[in-house]
């Protein structure tokens, strides 16, 4: 079996994230990392591989700038077997639609029984790439799994929806995305870190995937950012201490003043 895990390189959420002059996310000026939510996808793939106990391969795939290799390296350190890094200057500024096109081509080239994704990227947070990939690849979409079981050629997930908890079932090949409830991602061990250095990482460009520069990037985007603005910081509020026991009364006074009561 072959499992392809899509992982994204994102700016650190605790750093000062911002935009560059062309309104794209600044991925160079701030520290980047493997999106924390994609660690759950890597972990799930490793669990499926280990449970299968056969020659199942876990390949991690990322589309992103040169630095994005760090996301692959971290996944290999966790235990993935191989990496595929699609990098091309023309990809800069791609929206989810173009990103899903590049990912889909790369997955087709690999061939996968299971495609695993995270629930959202921590920078864009659109949560649409997995559904788009399923659409493009014609695979069953089994997304937002909070519990995943692979039973022969059947995949079953628990999906905690807004109104109900559902069990979704599909046959391989399949696209699965997992939430942060699905598992507890492992930390790379020293052995894992050493082993990762020797694992193969394929570097691909658009032309390797048979794609044209005109199909991706900012000019091919089907949406346009008109402008971006930093939100003014919230004006400092009133903070009172309850040391004298009046905190609750002052709070209720405030709420009443704002007509919440």
């Amino acid at each position, binding site marked *: 079996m072959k499992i392809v895990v899509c992982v994204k390189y994102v700016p650190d959420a605790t750093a000062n994230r911002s935009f560059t002059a062309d309104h794209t996310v600044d991925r160079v000026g701030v520290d980047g990392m493997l999106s924390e939510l994609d660690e759950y996808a890597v972990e799930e793939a490793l669990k499926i591989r280990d449970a299968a106990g056969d020659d199942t391969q876990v390949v991690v795939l990322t589309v992103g700038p040169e630095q994005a290799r760090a996301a692959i390296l971290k996944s290999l350190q966790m235990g993935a077997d191989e990496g595929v890094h699609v990098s091309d200057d023309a990809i800069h500024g791609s929206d989810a639609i173009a990103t899903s096109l590049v990912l889909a081509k790369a997955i087709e080239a690999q061939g996968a029984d299971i495609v695993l994704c995270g629930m959202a990227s921590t920078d864009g947070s659109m949560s649409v790439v997995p559904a788009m990939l399923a*659409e493009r690849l014609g695979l069953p979409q089994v997304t937002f799994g909070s519990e995943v079981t692979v039973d022969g050629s059947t995949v079953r997930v628990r999906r905690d929806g807004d109104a109900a908890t559902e069990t979704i079932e599909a046959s391989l090949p399949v696209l699965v995305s997992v939430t942060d409830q699905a598992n507890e991602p492992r930390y790379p061990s020293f052995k894992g870190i050493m082993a990762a250095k020797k694992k193969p990482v394929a570097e691909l460009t658009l032309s390797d995937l048979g794609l044209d520069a005109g199909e991706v990037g900012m000019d091919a985007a089907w949406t346009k950012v008109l402008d971006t603005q930093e939100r003014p910081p919230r004006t400092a509020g009133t903070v*009172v201490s309850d040391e004298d026991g009046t905190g609750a009364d002052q709070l209720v006074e405030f709420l009443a003043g704002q007509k919440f009561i």
Partner: protein
Amino acid sequence: MTEILVLVDHVDGTVRKTTAELLTIARRLGEPVAVFVGSGLADAREALKQYGAEKVYVLDSADLVDYLVAPKAEALAQLMEAKQPGAVLIASNAEGKEIAGRLAIKTSSGLITDAVDVQPGDDGPTTTQSVFAGGFTVNAAVTRGTPIITVKPNSATPEPVEGAASEEAFEVTVSDAAKTARIAESKPRQATGRPELTEAAIVVSGGRGTGGNFEPVEAFADSLGAAVGASRAAVDSGWYPHAYQVGQTGKTVSPQLYVATGISGAIQHRAGMQTSKTIVAVNKDEEAPIFELVDFGVVGDLHTVLPKATDAVNARKG
């Protein structure tokens, strides 16, 4: 006038508040038309009419509800092809965004997710989004195909306008390819009697500081008629169900009032509540980052402050 399609968000015909908001937004852009998928129309009819739906397209087929997302996207693509709407508005929840994503690819249309405002513009609707945990706002527009926009709850005040709500059944064909992810089982969530978290005007949340006792949080919420939320620390500890988690990997809320109690204010929590109109916190640590966000804060123990405040609110209500 061009039709603006609004996918009705409902549970067995009970229409969610976001649909009224979307119909209100649709009216700014053209003629509001509701798209009702599934059964239960009888219960939904009045709400759709009351918030201005001029037409209701009814798509009722078991194939549309027995499988995850894909059939709905297929049906909407067929409807778009037939009706050539000016835009499609969908509620920004997990399923809504997935339908929108697939629909965008099927119809070669630009997609904008998580809009907090949509206004008419010279070249079609322009949207406002709030990104990076609310640190930035982005204005954008769709440049190709039919704009498909998912809109967050509380992005507009629903305006009651009587619409004609004339009904038209629309036949869809669902391909076998769309019927591969089967919903084998569905357990509806238990009703709490409190307002729906993402729709509530007031949300009171508890975190690790509750120490596992949510009673004071719930009692205070009930005195205010609020929904109850929780931080991930509280959810991960098993103190409160995941469905009530506020934040990056939980729900995004944007109520009139958000009360954070025993919550430190980590960036991932902020991502789910930072756009709330008024923010209040109770935390015993005066250095807690949540105080950087508040309009009003109390440095104190939630186990003493909340019960007192609950009594005081109840007393005021008489």
